[in-house]
């Protein structure tokens, strides 16, 4: 193959469409212009449509009186409050079911995931059956199942199912005893916090001493005793400043105690069970991702089995588990918006449902709702990037 000599005269520039940088610049300018024109077109249409329907834009509607009741609220709310407050109520209900769902899904998911790797054949098969059943059925169907087929077919208040005469379950929900705190109760959480701080200090001291002298005390057990024992001691010393308000049947319904509405129960159960199946798979694959050589090498150093797990396998498995785990948490919080299908008063159901229908401010309401979820996922992905950067293997 002959090489053609470069016959281009000095000083000759190639035409601009052969220049990569210029081409990229032109392409990006065109793209920006196209997006701008598209947005301009949409905004124009929206303005035309809104003025045709007589809807004024803006967030002023948030100060108007809502006029509808909400069945569950963590803060004081009445139908005289504003639309802005319905947003807060909905958001807090979303975070409540999301937070409790994350806790339950993590617990169940880790147990099932570890059970799937158990040497016990039956246990492993049961765990597999759980995962394959709940992972492959749509979440909405599961929510409907728990709500319409289970909780709504429970007996009425008169024939409630009773658990030890203090907890009652009927078609109107779950009735739990409510703790009433008397004066002097504040000391108990204070004792709990003191115990946690003392435990951390003990751990740090124990580690330093171990590194310096090779001696160690069983700090884990001492901490556990401290965290459980100190609040208990304070409780007894202050004369048990808690009384329980136990629900009682009066007429057709229960009075007193703490009521969990069936919508919450159905949503929480379905979200936890569904997400736990995915978490179990993440836990399993995370543990299996650790090369067997790691365990063998640790055993060759004659580390006992619990230390092999604690110092070698689990830290490496967590590196694999945590990123997909956080995205499952995110999914759970996003999926909690299915509450609207059974009427649990979450953000989408209250704010993007009732408030939107009453005010007609579709753009503002949907934008605020989406902004909440976007903020949550942005925060979570920031955490994930930070975590990945922290635990990433430094190879070269």
């Amino acid at each position: 193959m002959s090489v053609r000599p470069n016959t281009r005269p000095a000083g000759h520039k190639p035409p601009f469409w052969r220049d990569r940088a210029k081409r990229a610049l032109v392409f990006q300018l065109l793209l920006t212009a196209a997006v701008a024109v598209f947005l301009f077109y949409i905004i124009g249409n929206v303005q035309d449509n809104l003025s045709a329907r007589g809807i004024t834009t803006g967030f002023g509607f948030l100060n108007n009186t809502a006029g509808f009741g909400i069945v569950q609220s963590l803060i004081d709310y009445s139908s005289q409050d504003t639309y802005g407050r319905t947003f807060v109520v909905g958001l807090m209900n979303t975070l409540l079911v999301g937070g409790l769902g994350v806790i339950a899904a993590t617990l169940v998911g880790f147990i099932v995931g570890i059970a799937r790797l158990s040497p016990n054949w039956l246990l492993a098969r049961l765990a597999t059956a759980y995962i394959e059943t709940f992972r492959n059925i749509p979440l909405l169907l599961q929510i409907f199942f728990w709500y319409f087929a289970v909780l709504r077919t429970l007996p009425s208040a008169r024939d409630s199912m009773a658990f030890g005469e203090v907890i009652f379950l009927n078609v109107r929900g779950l009735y739990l005893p409510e703790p009433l705190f008397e004066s002097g109760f504040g000391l108990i959480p204070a004792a709990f916090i003191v115990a946690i701080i003392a435990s951390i200090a003990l751990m740090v001291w124990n580690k330093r001493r171990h590194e310096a002298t090779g001696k160690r005390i069983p700090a884990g057990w001492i901490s556990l005793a401290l965290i459980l024992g100190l609040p208990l001691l304070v409780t007894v010393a202050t004369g048990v400043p808690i009384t329980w308000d136990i629900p009682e049947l009066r007429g057709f319904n229960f009075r007193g105690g703490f009521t969990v509405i069936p919508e919450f129960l159905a949503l929480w159960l379905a979200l936890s069970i569904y997400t736990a199946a995915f978490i179990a798979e993440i836990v399993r694959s995370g543990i299996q991702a650790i090369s067997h050589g790691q365990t063998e090498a640790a055993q060759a150093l004659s580390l006992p089995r619990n230390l092999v797990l604690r110092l070698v396998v689990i830290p490496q498995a967590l590196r694999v588990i945590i990123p997909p785990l956080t995205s499952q948490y995110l999914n759970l919080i996003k999926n909690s918006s299915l509450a609207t299908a059974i009427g649990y008063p979450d953000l989408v159901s209250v704010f993007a449902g009732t408030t939107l229908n009453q005010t007609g401010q579709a753009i503002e309401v949907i934008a605020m709702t989406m902004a909440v979820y976007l903020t949550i996922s942005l925060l979570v992905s920031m955490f994930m990037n930070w975590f990945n950067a922290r635990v990433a293997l430094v190879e070269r």
Partner: protein
Amino acid sequence: MIHNQTMIDQRPAPSNTLGPMAWLRANLFSSPLNTLFTLVGLYILYLLVVPTIQWAFINADWIGTTRADCSREGACWVFVNARFTQFIYGLYPRSEIWRANIVFGGFFTLIAWLAIPRLPLKRWVAVFALVGFPVVAYVLLHGGYFDLPRVPTHRWGGLMLTLLLASVGMIGALPIGIVLALGRRSNMPIVKSFCVIFIEFWRGVPLITVLFMASVMLPLFLPSGISVDRLVRALIGLTLFQSAYMAEVIRGGLQAIPKGQEEAAAALGMTYWKRMGLIVLPQALKMMIPGIVNTFISLFKDTTLVMIIGLFDLLGIVQAALSDSNWLGFSLEGYVFAAFVFWIFCFSMSRYSQYLERKLNTGHKR
């Protein structure tokens, strides 16, 4: 002369390492803790399986047409039986169901053809499935051409609508996802940031708000006088939502291709589109198939959400049938049937994706 006293005593025969007893000992009763687990597991199994079998099979009613035929205490499958056509085709006119059947037949034939490795002409079948078949299916289902009577989209429903939403969402999302994934890896900062914003926006919001947006806000975005069919609105929402997830799967596949491949192609003087189309994407797509199947499974399950904006997919039509005053109180049967159908589809797809993963895994595994 043998000195017997120097021999050690005979040991007992080693316990069996073969056979069912040995298997039981090794897998179920190897330690006290394991024995406890096995017994608890057996008890749970007993609590779950026995009543389920009694309810679903032994005490169930199968034959009949009205609720009066359900006299026993078990499941009333008569309900599902009586509503079966509706669960599959929605409110599609009875006389036109043959059209839906042809589409169903074609759909499953194409899927089977693409899924079974031994069948030939994969490329042409894939092109037909992605380009030709949607047109044929639309003409058949919607009608209005070739003397076929029109069937408006609000009469479509059931499993047919579920499959339609999932497949159209998928086929639409694939090209958008490829473009977004390439854009996200681009060197051009503006292109890259547009793609990142687009992907992260759709991935950050729940599908239900996307569907609300499609049904409430999309009419505001269009010039007045133009109205879009409700099904099309749902499809636009689903496709955009899905394309962001698809883009992330494709990006994962692209990242798995060593940089040397693209550099070598560039050294041969190939342009960007040739490098991508001939070198990088063909290799990456192969790796992405399991991920694509997984996103398809989640899309398939997510299609149930369209019932919230008033379309009657499989779950929607079951839910509607449950509120029929002639058939009140059979919610368990309805949900179990719907769950069974969804489960069959999702489970077989996930098994197929696992099979592909094993088949495509040419790396060295311990």
